[in-house]
């Protein structure tokens, strides 16, 4: 059916619009009734520190039903033989901008950053998510099944706006949860560009939080609540009191502890400020970047501040990153800080592959192997409050699984099968189709002589 016909039908129907919306959500919620059993897997369940050899993983109705060593698959299940290769839960990216970026240099294809006049903390990228992005197609084929996509800048610095949780299903709605967290940027060029000083940035942040706190006067105002157990589909945007601005709604979520405040920042002094902010306001804080976080590891751990770091950062790219080093991840984890990965420059274009390469590099520099896996699978889920669904192979968890042809933390390993909601997704991409189109001529070119 073409688009105008569909619109016409909708406008002439006697069914209430709200009911139509509910029906749409139900369509998106439909999951596969098929039962899939992956057998002979080296299963990194991440419920323990070791892999379970010769595991059978059963997925029914999109959820994991069972995982055990050397058990027979249920009758009637579709059998997938992993042949002893590693199987992990789907990867989760803790801080990317997929769905908001297409071609960086073609600015009209970029939706992650708003200009002055747009909302601040409440600038909400949920309205811009593009499921048909080539970046998402590639990330999914690389084993990424969930991601938090975040805004790069809002109308009111130092806030960037609110991010979204994506689940990279092949067809239909990929926005799983809106307003997963509020984002801000502190330090370096952002300070110069906004208030001229990072001190002012922290002050503005604190003033905004003070205002939000004051607005949460008992009796508790009926603001939007985020479900603790997310449904399989995106919930409708929270209904708020008309007087409340988008910014106020977003900050209310932060000060009532429902979502984290994620701050992109790198310098040691800013790590301490972030930890202090978490304590002073009793809020959840996540640091993105954190090049010098290892210098304040104990403070971050005590304040339960998680760090989404770039494991390749070992150069003083700016004066905020003079202490950047490759064992940042290892040092932070050792101190008890929850860590995840996001690699500058490739966090979106190679959202899946870059995570594995980064985690592998962190392991090469002292992070225990299983912690490397957790940093790209379960820790992001923990940070963003979706651990009840994502991150381990255990009964009740989402049937999002990846079979690898080798060690998943070796960038030279490849995903050979990706399951989302128990359904095997296509690994075909724009790139793979180009490869297939041009591969035949490679053989023919072999006989051509060079001078």
């Amino acid at each position, binding site marked *: 059916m073409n688009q105008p016909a569909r619109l016409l039908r909708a406008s002439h129907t006697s069914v209430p619009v709200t009911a139509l919306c509910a029906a749409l959500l139900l369509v998106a919620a439909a999951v596969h009734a098929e039962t899939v059993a992956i057998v002979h897997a080296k299963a990194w369940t991440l419920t323990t520190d070791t892999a379970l050899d010769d595991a059978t993983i059963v997925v029914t109705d999109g959820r994991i039903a069972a995982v055990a060593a050397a058990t027979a698959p249920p009758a009637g299940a579709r059998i997938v033989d992993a042949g002893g290769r590693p199987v992990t839960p789907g990867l989760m990216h803790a801080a990317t901008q997929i769905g908001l970026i297409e071609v960086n240099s073609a600015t009209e294809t970029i939706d992650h950053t708003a200009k002055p006049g747009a909302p601040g903390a409440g600038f909400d990228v949920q309205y811009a998510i593009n499921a048909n992005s080539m970046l998402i197609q590639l990330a999914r084929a690389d084993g990424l099944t969930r991601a938090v996509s975040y805004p790069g800048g809002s109308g009111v610095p130092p806030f960037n706006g609110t991010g979204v949780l994506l689940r990279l299903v092949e067809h239909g709605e990929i926005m799983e949860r809106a307003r997963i967290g509020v984002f801000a940027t502190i330090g370096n060029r952002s300070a110069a560009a906004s208030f001229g000083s990072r001190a002012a940035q922290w002050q503005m942040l604190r003033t905004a939080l003070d205002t939000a706190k004051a607005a949460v006067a008992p009796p508790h105002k009926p603001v939007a609540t985020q479900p603790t157990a997310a449904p399989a589909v995106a919930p409708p945007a929270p209904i708020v009191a008309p007087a409340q601005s988008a910014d106020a709604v977003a900050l209310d979520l932060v000060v009532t502890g429902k979502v984290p405040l994620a701050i992109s920042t790198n310098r040691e002094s800013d790590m301490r400020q972030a930890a202090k902010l978490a304590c002073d306001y009793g809020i959840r804080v996540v640091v993105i970047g954190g090049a010098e976080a290892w210098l304040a590891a104990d403070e971050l751990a005590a304040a339960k501040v998680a760090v989404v770091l770039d494991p390749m950062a070992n150069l003083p790219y700016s004066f905020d990153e003079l202490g950047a080093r490759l064992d940042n991840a290892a040092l932070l984890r050792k101190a008890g800080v929850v860590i995840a990965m996001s690699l500058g420059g490739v966090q979106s274009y190679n959202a899946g592959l870059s995570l594995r390469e980064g985690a592998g590099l962190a392991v090469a520099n002292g992070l225990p192997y299983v912690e490397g896996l957790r940093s790209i699978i379960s820790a992001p889920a923990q940070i963003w409050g979706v651990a009840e669904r994502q991150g381990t192979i255990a009964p009740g968890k989402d049937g999002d699984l990846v079979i690898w042809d080798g060690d998943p933390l*070796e*960038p030279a390993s490849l995903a050979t099968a990706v399951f989302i909601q128990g359904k095997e997704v296509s690994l075909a991409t724009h790139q793979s189709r180009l490869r297939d189109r041009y591969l035949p001529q490679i053989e023919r070119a072999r006989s051509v002589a060079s001078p």
Partner: protein
Amino acid sequence: MKLPRSAWVRGCATTVALALLVCTGAMAARPSPPFDIDPYPSTYQPLPRTDTLIAGVTILDGTGKRIENGDVLIREGRIVAVGQGLAGNGATVIEGKGRWLTPGIVDVHSHNGTYSVPLTSLDLKASDVAETSDPNVADTWVEHAVNPQDPAFSAALRAGVTTLQVLPGSTPLFAGRSVILKPVPAADVPAMKFPGARQALKMSCGENAKSNWGEKGEAPNSRQGEIAIVREAFQRAQDYRDEWQQYSKGKSKKPPPRDLKLDTLAAVLDGDIAVHMHCYRASDMAAMLGVAQEFGFHITAFHHAVEAYKIPVLLKRAGTCIAVWSDWWGFKMELQDAIRENAAMFDAAGGCVMMHSDSPVVGQRLTIEAAKAAAAGRRAGLSMPPEHIIRWVTSTPARALGLGDRIGTIAAGFNADIVIWSGDPFSIYSKADQVFVDGALAYDRAAPARSPRSDFELGRPEAGEQP
């Protein structure tokens, strides 16, 4: 750089013996054109070194051979023997058991020293990556901008890089002359310069130049405008070169007025300066190959070359290599068709492939770049074993820099630029344990106190990875 020419000029002016030898022909009083004279020659001196026998390692020789349990003997900065069960005869012995040995990594596309970290607001206003006041800055020499205290140099060395070509950035069409450096501690650039290495001209095509000048309402603001500027410049260079030849042959009284831009382009036409060209799209590369054919110059390599897999025959016939990333794509329009199989497919077609960095981060992991590109090839059914793909970061870039007989290969007679890796160099878990430059142990992971650090890093928050 061709030594005879500069010797001729200096010889005629200052040395009686040389003057007698060289200045006696028909062109006796006529100096050769100054196109490729280097007035700022290398003052590099090898670091203190001892003769060394590295024993019992897995050797990837850089040209396709793999030797298990092999030995390499180094004397006076050169490799003198490669084999099994070699006698050290007094040389320091390094037991390599379980470790791997490769030639030093050659990065054919670096901006280290110009994209110098930390980057500040000053770089945003005016960066040293390239002079961008004109689309033709063929008279600029990037060595005049390089900061030896960029921490990226020592980071590259610690990652096994022993030679790198610093190229000017790709905003101008003619971006200037490159310099080939060793990432060794130095206070000035000549002390890092690879002795006798010839320069290259960095050129570019596609989006960069037309976007930069187009936005200002200046030329070029289109691809065809770019090509027109390039053709016009080479036409003038041909005329300039002809005038010089007329003069050299005694057919005119005076040489043409010195033009530093045309010097560079004339040296390209003479084949004395290599062309390294930033191009992404197949159609852009094809257009530039056409211009090269028209004016009679050779493009040594297309850099980035993300669509090389579409035109393997054209590139092979031209004898042009590609220098590529494994997986960067998408961020510009001309990168929409970048695929991870590019390197492997072009290699399988018999093309000449190099991995490049273009980034101080990637520049610390060129073997991982090769590993990722090879993995994509594997998925396409193309076999790319370690002994084969090591060529992409050693002997092939060495040849592209005109240094193929000196570095990039583990064989007797070659400079002892060597990396001992803790394991398979294509594994993310492996590290460069020891890095030799001209036989000198320039980096030893087991001796962090002697680890090279730039002046910038001294006294700043403790940085760098723990060994």
